[in-house]
């Protein structure tokens, strides 16, 4: 029956309306870049069986409730749904597994967001989306505003922690350990004629390490900072124990701004404080400020500290080296992400970078989505 639909049932055999709709629409969503995993599709089918498939609103909300789990995906969902609903009655689009094609048009020029069918008889649904896939390797510096928006959605999926630690049974186990303690306590209390003995808890502390992100927003970083701040934003809303600061001519803590707000506004506020946009920044001085005020007082202690900067420093390299050393003494690991790392001829120019490198455990690229994906791996294995 309906509920046994699995990957092994070919699309061709799906007879009933809800299943057909669910499977086809899920495919459209996947092509659009959403995940639509099988268990969610099964939920969608069950939802459609309750609500029917005749009312656009019902189908829309059934899909929203079962296939979407983040507000960022809603606009993509809406566009895909509009196209899908318009073509749902066109059997040649959906009747044959082989023939169903959803083509994603690179949506460079325009504002038209709804899809159009090809004028030919070729059964292809065309959904206009921007260049999600082509973005993967593109240098942030050449991003358009639209691409930044899409990049933000993609960055939201980069998780700074890996999957669950294998701890599904940990809590009950901890529970049992605690019970054993009570038992021991009770035994001890037998021995001492019922004397009250304090029970001890031995729950292990397995909280994730804090991550501190220091984003350089000085002039030279401008083309990258607006992309990287989205990454920082995704990191801050994505998990607990992430702290974020900007480095300019001064230090600004932006964790709170980023928590629920538009990263652009946070960036603007932070960069309002950057007096000199044309030159480099005073990395060493700002880092000293971080160390004095936050870092060595505890925030960086045992943390993974990630500096996102091109390493241009107008101040003295000695100051930077000294502050990196201080930071290195308390941090668990220092990761330096440099968007210019891949730029030929860059290395010898950045004195600051050279001064900082001896204290850096991981020195990695940061100019593209791919590079950031790599960064998340480095951080979660740190």
């Amino acid at each position: 029956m309906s509920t046994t639909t699995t990957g092994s049932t070919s699309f061709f055999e799906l007879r009933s309306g809800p299943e057909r709709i669910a499977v086809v629409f899920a495919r459209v969503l996947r092509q659009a870049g959403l995940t639509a995993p099988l268990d969610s599709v099964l939920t969608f089918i069950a939802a459609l069986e309750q609500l029917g498939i005749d009312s656009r609103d019902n189908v829309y909300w059934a899909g929203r409730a079962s296939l979407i789990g983040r507000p960022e995906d809603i606009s993509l969902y809406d566009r895909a749904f509009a196209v899908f609903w318009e073509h749902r009655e066109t059997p040649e689009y959906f009747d044959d597994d082989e023939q169903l094609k959803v083509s994603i048009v690179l949506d460079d020029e325009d504002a038209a967001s709804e899809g159009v069918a090809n004028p030919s008889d070729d059964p292809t649904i065309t959904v206009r989306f921007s260049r999600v896939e082509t973005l993967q390797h593109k240098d942030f510096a050449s991003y358009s505003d639209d691409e930044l928006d899409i990049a933000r959605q993609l960055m939201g999926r980069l998780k700074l922690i890996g999957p669950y630690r294998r701890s599904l049974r940990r809590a009950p186990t901890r529970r049992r350990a605690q019970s054993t303690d009570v038992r021991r306590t009770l035994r001890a209390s037998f021995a001492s004629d019922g004397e009250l003995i304090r029970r001890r808890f031995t729950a292990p502390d397995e909280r994730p390490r804090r991550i501190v992100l220091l984003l350089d927003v000085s002039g030279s970083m401008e083309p990258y900072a607006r992309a990287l701040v989205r990454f920082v934003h995704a990191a801050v809303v994505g998990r607990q124990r992430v702290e974020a600061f900007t480095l300019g001519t001064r230090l600004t803590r932006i964790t709170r701004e980023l928590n629920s707000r538009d990263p652009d506004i946070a960036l603007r506020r932070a960069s309002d404080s950057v007096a000199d946009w044309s030159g480099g920044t005073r990395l060493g001085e700002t880092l000293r400020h971080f160390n004095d005020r936050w870092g060595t007082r505890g925030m960086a202690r045992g943390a993974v500290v990630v500096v996102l900067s091109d390493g241009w420093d107008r101040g003295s390299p000695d100051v930077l080296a000294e502050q990196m050393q201080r930071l290195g003494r308390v941090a668990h690991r220092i990761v330096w992400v440099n968007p210019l790392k891949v730029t030929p001829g860059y290395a010898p120019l950045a004195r600051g970078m050279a001064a900082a490198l001896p204290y850096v455990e991981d020195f990695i690229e940061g100019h593209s989505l791919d590079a950031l994906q790599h960064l998340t791996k480095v951080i979660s294995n740190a």
Partner: protein
Amino acid sequence: MYPSRRTPTLWGVTVSSVTDVRAGLQANGYLPDDGVTTAVYLSLSLGRPLFLEGEAGVGKTELAKTIARWRGAPLIRLQCYEGIDISQAVYDWDYSRQLLHLRAAEASGEAKEAGTTALENQLYSERFLVKRAILRAITDESNTPPVLLIDEIDRADDEFEAYLLEVLSDFQVTIPEIGTYVAKQPPVVVLTSNRTRDVHDALKRRCLYHWVEHPDFEREVSIVRAKVPSVDVSLAAQVAAAVGSLRAMNLYKPPGIAETIDWATALGRLGTSVLDESVVEATLGTVLKYKEDHDRVRELGIAAMVKQALDRGLLHG
């Protein structure tokens, strides 16, 4: 696994349509939009937990409470916080009573007679078990299954989420010393998150998900009217419009519905019928919680905000 009943019957009461749900919620003081209504209907009819996510103050907690009121079901609430674990969420042992029992057994000489193992079995029996929210929901014997509200799950840790995922998959809890409790009728489960961090996808996929938005203007006016009947339509509309403007100002803490209600109540008490700059200035504290937000609103101009509110509000009234 995924029941597909066309006319689902839960708790002996038929939830036959989305319209039923809307009527039920409205009759109990909650004014839902289509998205919320459909999500609640699906959650009840499919027997799946409902995951509500959205900014603070958009009505997530209130929705769970209203479902309980409407169904005449007990509400069992678990407020999450950082570090919450099984002993606070599921069950614990009553340690002091265990000790008392132990002493009594010793005093009467029963301890020596029965032996350590037998005594331990007594001590780790249901008698000394303290049921917390989740176990209470699973063992609840009321005529109508309870509504289990797991509030602000985003405050709990990953490990707790993982455990919840297990519980919500089979609605059973195993206590090594006693055995396994299986829910006779699964509770209605509502989870909420203010999204201070992302909750794991696996948990969301177990649920029906709804992103709760701030209400639109019309609905907010209706909510104010329903909650503060002494405030007339015109004032309610002005307040709703002003709050709408505030929400567009990118504040640290955009006002929720509770703030709208508080503000309307305060203005009503002051006898205000038409907003002006000074009365807004004087009462803004009921709406904004941070000094930075006050500064920002002043910077953007209270006068302009009042004008907008009047245009929209007076037109409406």
